[in-house]
Each structure stands twice: as structure tokens, then as C-alpha cells.
């Protein structure tokens, strides 16, 4: 069976299944033919039965015709008989097709045919016309006589034919069944054998190879792979598996050498598609390079660690010094901060005071402005007074002029009186009356003079009073002027004061702001100093930690060196 085993699995399967299929085909063919034969027999039986039924129907129709008397029914029955007879003819024609396998059958069929024809003839040529003519008795006699016999014979023949057909069918069936059983049994046997064989030569090796794959999957590369000598797919698979196992073993060996510290191994990839091999080769190369780099690095590390150690010691001392200096600075900064706070407060209060003073000076300025306004009003009043005075003096001047005129009148009257007196004196005795008149005139002139004198005196008084008033007004005006000047001076000085105070207020505000900023800055400095202090404390701690770490690194460096020396490059 070597040649079979070395066939391709596909071919093997094809052969095995082909055999089974062949047997199946045989069975099918057998079955088909048997079934068709049985069918034929069945159909024959059915045809005969139909024929028989038909005959019965005909007979029944005829008998019915004989018995019924109604014309209409008769006609109907005649029609029925005709149709049944036609069917009978058709059936008759088909029968030979079914019954032609043996001589006996043929003879029987012929006999049947003959009898039928005779029956038919009798019926059609004699019975039916008799019935039509009303000769029922004769018809009946015929029907129940000759035709009855023929009918019975036909029936027997038909039954025999049917029975023969059934017999044949049964025989065929039995034969077919036997053939099926036989062939089937053989096929089953062969299939079973094929299955067992195939499973033996396909499934078992595959199972074994899959078991090997399972082992390889969990990493166990031991064990051989059997079935490698076959040349079919199984054999190919086994060989490939063996190659794979071998290469994996080689890789495992390389890995083992690397693990033990021997980096001199060479990892050979099996092809340029060998992922694992290429990766291994690269890994080995990298490991070699890495180890040499590591060796260098470790050396450097060792020297650096010692340097770090010394410098961290220095750093620790300097950090503690820094910490003390920083704490001192912090206290100083705190003091400065407090001072700045105080000065800031003071500056703020000064600023507020300056603001208030500025407001007050504004108020003062307004007051002086009002004063100046009042003064101006006073001056206006003074001017009005002066005007009135001027008018008054003008009026008194006018009065004076009038008085002068009156005085003049008085003087002239006086003169007139004197002249009159002279004339009276000259006139002598006759002039005495005239002298009286002259005296009257003189006295009138005297009165006028007195009156004018009084008026003038009053005028003088008025004048004096006016003058005094004018002087007072002037003085008042001067005083007002002085007052205005003083007010404006006061206003100016207040303004200057306000300006100065404003400047002072601005300066104070600036001082307050800057001292506030100063305070903020000092606060920031204080907090910065705090954080510096914290940082320096942390520095000291970190310096100590660094020292320990440096020492650890040194130790680590030593250990690394020892570890690296294990690896041979």
C-alpha cells in the first residue's frame, strides 16, 4: 500500500469517496429500474381495475336502462352509456401497452379483448336497440344471459391479469430489495473500510503532528516528528515541522548561550524572511553593542559617582551656610516689612489730611470769591452812592446858583434901597415917604439876605455833609478797594495754598501709593525670602540625600561592574 500512502491526500480522498459514490450509483440505478418496473406493473393493475370498473359501469347502465321507463331518464342513461363505452374503448387501447411481457399475458389479453368485443357488439347491436324499441324482456334476457357470461368471464380475466401484474410487481420489488440490501451492505463495508484506512493514514499522522505542534506551542521542543518519510502532504508537513523544530532548537540554544552570558554566539537567520532569526541576529548584535556601551558607561559612572560624592559633600556644607544666611535675611526683611507698613500707613493718613486740607482750601477759595463778589457789590453800591452824591452836589450847586441869584437880587435890592434912600435924602421933606419905602425895601432886602444867608448856611451844611458823605464814600470805596485787593490777595494766597496743598496732596498720594507698592514689594520679598528659606532647608536635606544617593550610586557602580564582567563579548 505504499504507493497509496504516498498519493496526495486529495487523491486518496477522491478514490475512497469515488468508490463509495460508485456503489451509491449502482444502488440508485438498480433502484431506479426496479421502481420503474414496479410502477409499470402498478399502472397495469390500475388500468385493468379501471377497465373493470368501466365494465361494471356499462353493465349497470344497461341494467338501469332495462329497468327504468322514464324516457328522459333513459336518454340520459343512454348518453351515459355512450360515454362510458367510449372510455372503455380508450382503456382497451391502452391495455396492450401494459401487458406485453409474456406470452401467457398476451394470450389472456387477447381473450379479454375478444370477449369484450363480443359483449360490445351484442350490447350495441341488440340490447340497446331492444331497449330503445321497448323490448325490455328480450334485452334483459340477453343482458342477464349471454352478456352476463361474457361479463363474468371478462371479470375473471381481468382479475387474473391484475393478479399477474401484482405478482410481477411483488417479485420485482423483492428482487430489488435483495439487490439493495446486497449492494448496500457491500457499499457500507467498503466505505467503512475506506474510512478506517483513511483515518489511519491521514488522521492519525495529523493528530500526532498536531500534538507535536501543541508541544511546540507550549515551548517543548523535544521529541521527534514521525511520518517524515512519506511524500504526501502529511509527510511534507511532518518534514516542515521537523525543520521548524530544529531551527527553534537552534534559536533556543543561542538564547540559552546568551542567557548564560556568552555573547559571542552567532544567530543565523534561515532566510531573509525569517522574522525570528533576523530579530535574534539583531538582538544579539544589539546586546553585544549594548554590553560594550554599558561597560564603558559603568566605568564612567564609577568615576562620576566618586566625583559626585565629593561635590555633594561640599554642596551640603554650602547649603547649610546658605540656610543660616537666609534665615538672618528673613528676619531683616520682616523688620523692613514692618517699617514699610508703618510708613505706608503714615503716608496714607498724610494723604487723607492733605485731601481734607485741599477741600478746605477749596472752600476758602470759594469764600474769598464770594467776598470779592460782595466787595464788588459794595463797590457798585458805593459807585451808586457816589453818583447820587454827585447828583446831590449838582443839585446843591444849582441851589447855590439860585441862592446866588437871590443874593444878587437881595444886594441889588439893597442897592436899590440905598439909592432910594439917597434920593429920599436928596428930596428932603417930600422924600420922607419915599425914605420909608426905601427902608421897607432895605428891610426886605435884609430879609432876603438873611434868608439867603440861612439857605446858604443850610447849603453849606448840606455841602459839608455831602462832602463828608463823599469822603466817607470814597473812604468806603477805598476800603472796598483795599478789601477787594485783600480778598483777591487772600484768594490768591488761598489759591496758592490750595495749589500747594493740592501738590502736597498729590505728592502725599504718590507717597502713599509708592509706599503701598513698597509694602507690597517688601511683602513679596518677605515671602520670597520665606520660600528661599524653605528651599534652602530643602536644599540641605536634599544635599544629605544626595550624599547618600551618591554613595549608593558608587556602590551601584561597583555592582554593575561586577555584573558586566560576567558577560563575555
Amino acid at each position, binding site marked *: 500500500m505504499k504507493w497509496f500512502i504516498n498519493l496526495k491526500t486529495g487523491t486518496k480522498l477522491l478514490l475512497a469517496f469515488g468508490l463509495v459514490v460508485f456503489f451509491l450509483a449502482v444502488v440508485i440505478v438498480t433502484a431506479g429500474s426496479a421502481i420503474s418496473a414496479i410502477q409499470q406493473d402498478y399502472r397495469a393493475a390500475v388500468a385493468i381495475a379501471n377497465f373493470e370498473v368501466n365494465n361494471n359501469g356499462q353493465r349497470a347502465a344497461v341494467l338501469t336502462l332495462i329497468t327504468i321507463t322514464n324516457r328522459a331518464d333513459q336518454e340520459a342513461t343512454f348518453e351515459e352509456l355512450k360515454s362510458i363505452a367510449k372510455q372503455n374503448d380508450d382503456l382497451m387501447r391502452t391495455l396492450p401497452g401494459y401487458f406485453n411481457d409474456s406470452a401467457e399475458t398476451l394470450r389472456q389479453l387477447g381473450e379479454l379483448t375478444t370477449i369484450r368485443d363480443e359483449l360490445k357488439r351484442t350490447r350495441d347491436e341488440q340490447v340497446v336497440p331492444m331497449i330503445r324499441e321497448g323490448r325490455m324482456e328480450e334485452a334483459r334476457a340477453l343482458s342477464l344471459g349471454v352478456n352476463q357470461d361474457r361479463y363474468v368471464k371478462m371479470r375473471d380475466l381481468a382479475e387474473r391479469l391484475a393478479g399477474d401484474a401484482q405478482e410481477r410487481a411483488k417479485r420485482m420489488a423483492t428482487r430489488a430489495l435483495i439487490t439493495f440490501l446486497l449492494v448496500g451492505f457491500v457499499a457500507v463495508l467498503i466505505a467503512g473500510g475506506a474510512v478506517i484506512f483513511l483515518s489511519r493514514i491521514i488522521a492519525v499522522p495529523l493528530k500526532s503532528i498536531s500534538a507535536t505542534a501543541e508541544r511546540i506551542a507550549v515551548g517543548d521542543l523535544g521529541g521527534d516528528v514521525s511520518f517524515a518519510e512519506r511524500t504526501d502532504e502529511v509527510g511534507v508537513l511532518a518534514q516542515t515541522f521537523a525543520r521548524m523544530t530544529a531551527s527553534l532548537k537552534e534559536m533556543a540554544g543561542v538564547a540559552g548561550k546568551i542567557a548564560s552570558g556568552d555573547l559571542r554566539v552567532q544567530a543565523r537567520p534561515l532566510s531573509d524572511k525569517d522574522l525570528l532569526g533576523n530579530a535574534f541576529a539583531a538582538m544579539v548584535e544589539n546586546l553585544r553593542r549594548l554590553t560594550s556601551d554599558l561597560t564603558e558607561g559603568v566605568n564612567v559612572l564609577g568615576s562620576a559617582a566618586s566625583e559626585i560624592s565629593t561635590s555633594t559633600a561640599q554642596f551640603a556644607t554650602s547649603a547649610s551656610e546658605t540656610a543660616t544666611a537666609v534665615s538672618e535675611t528673613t528676619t531683616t526683611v520682616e523688620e523692613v516689612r514692618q517699617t514699610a507698613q508703618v510708613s505706608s500707613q503714615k503716608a496714607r493718613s498724610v494723604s487723607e489730611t492733605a485731601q481734607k486740607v485741599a477741600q478746605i482750601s477749596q472752600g476758602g477759595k470759594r469764600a474769598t470769591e464770594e467776598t470779592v463778589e460782595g466787595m464788588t457789590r459794595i463797590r457798585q453800591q458805593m459807585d451808586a452812592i457816589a453818583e447820587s452824591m454827585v447828583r446831590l452836589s449838582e443839585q446843591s450847586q444849582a441851589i447855590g446858583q439860585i441862592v446866588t441869584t437871590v443874593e444878587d437880587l437881595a*444886594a*441889588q435890592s*439893597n*442897592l436899590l*434901597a*440905598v*439909592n432910594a*434912600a*439917597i*434920593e429920599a*435924602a*436928596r428930596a428932603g421933606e417930600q422924600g420922607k415917604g419915599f425914605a420909608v419905602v*426905601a427902608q421897607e425895601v*432895605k428891610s426886605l432886602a435884609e430879609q432876603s439876605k438873611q434868608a439867603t444867608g440861612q439857605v446858604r448856611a443850610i447849603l453849606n451844611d448840606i455841602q459839608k455833609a455831602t462832602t463828608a458823605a463823599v469822603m466817607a464814600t470814597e473812604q468806603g470805596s477805598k476800603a472796598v478797594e483795599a478789601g477787594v485787593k485783600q480778598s483777591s490777595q487772600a484768594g490768591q494766597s488761598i489759591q496758592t495754598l490750595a495749589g500747594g496743598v493740592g501738590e502736597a496732596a498729590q505728592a502725599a498720594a504718590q507717597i502713599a501709593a509708592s509706599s503701598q507698592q513698597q509694602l507690597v514689594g517688601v511683602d513679596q520679598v518677605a515671602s520670597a525670602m520665606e520660600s528661599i528659606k524653605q528651599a534652602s532647608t530643602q536644599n540641605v536635606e536634599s544635599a544629605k540625600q544626595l550624599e547618600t544617593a551618591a554613595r549608593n550610586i558608587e556602590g551601584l557602580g561597583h555592582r554593575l561592574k561586577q555584573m558586566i564582567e560576567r558577560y563575555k563579548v
Partner: protein
Amino acid sequence: MEVIEFALAHERYAIETACVREVHTLQDLTSLPCTPDFVAGIVNVRGRILPVIDIRKFFDLPEKGISDMHYLLLVYTDDMEIGILADTVAGVRSVPLDAMQASLPTLTGVREEYLKGVTAERLVILDARRILADRRILVQDEVEA
């Protein structure tokens, strides 16, 4: 005696009423050159031109006080009429003759000959005729052209 009393530079004088035509206000006194200094000038009174005499200058009295010279007394005699300056004219009064005294030399300095007398109130009564008859009144002067 009826006299007219007038004042001139704080001195009170009087002249007989008989010799006084009228009293006038002084207007338009026109001064003349080349006249003696006691001639104040000329004046036009109702169409008549009259000379005006300043008594003080006539009597060579030292000038003291300011004179208003508002009034003019028209004094006349038979052949002459002059005007006499006066500040104020008091009026006509009667002076009893026996009240007059002869002038004292310590008084005003006016020469006695021109005075009729002085009253107890220091009123100098002038003699108009004598004044007017004085030669000095007649001015005849020629001015060299």
C-alpha cells in the same frame, strides 16, 4: 447928617448922602494906561463915562486885605463926578454930628484934611468936596506915542 456907609478892604467909610448921586454895582471897569495908580479906570454908567478912584491908593494906604470892589459910589460936586470903589455898601444912616471926632493920627493914615471925622465905631467919614477938589484928580498926562 445922613451918610452912606460903605466898606473897603475891612475899613468902614462913609460919605455924605448929599454928595452921592447913587450906588451902583461895579460893571465893566476899564483900566486906563498912563494914569496915576489911584485911578482904577473908567466906567460907563447910563451913557456917562466916569473915572473910578481907589480910595486906598489915593490916600496911599498900604494895601491890606482883599477887596471885592463890587460897588461904585457916584460922588459928585458942582463940577466933578467920580466913582469910588467899595466892597460893600451898608446903607444910609444918620450920624449925629457930635459923635464925630477928629481923626486920630494912629488910625488909618488917611490925611486929616480929607476927613470929616471919625465916629466911635471907627467909621471914617470922608469929605467928598475936599477929595474932589484935590489937584491930583485932574490928570493931564501925555503919553509919548
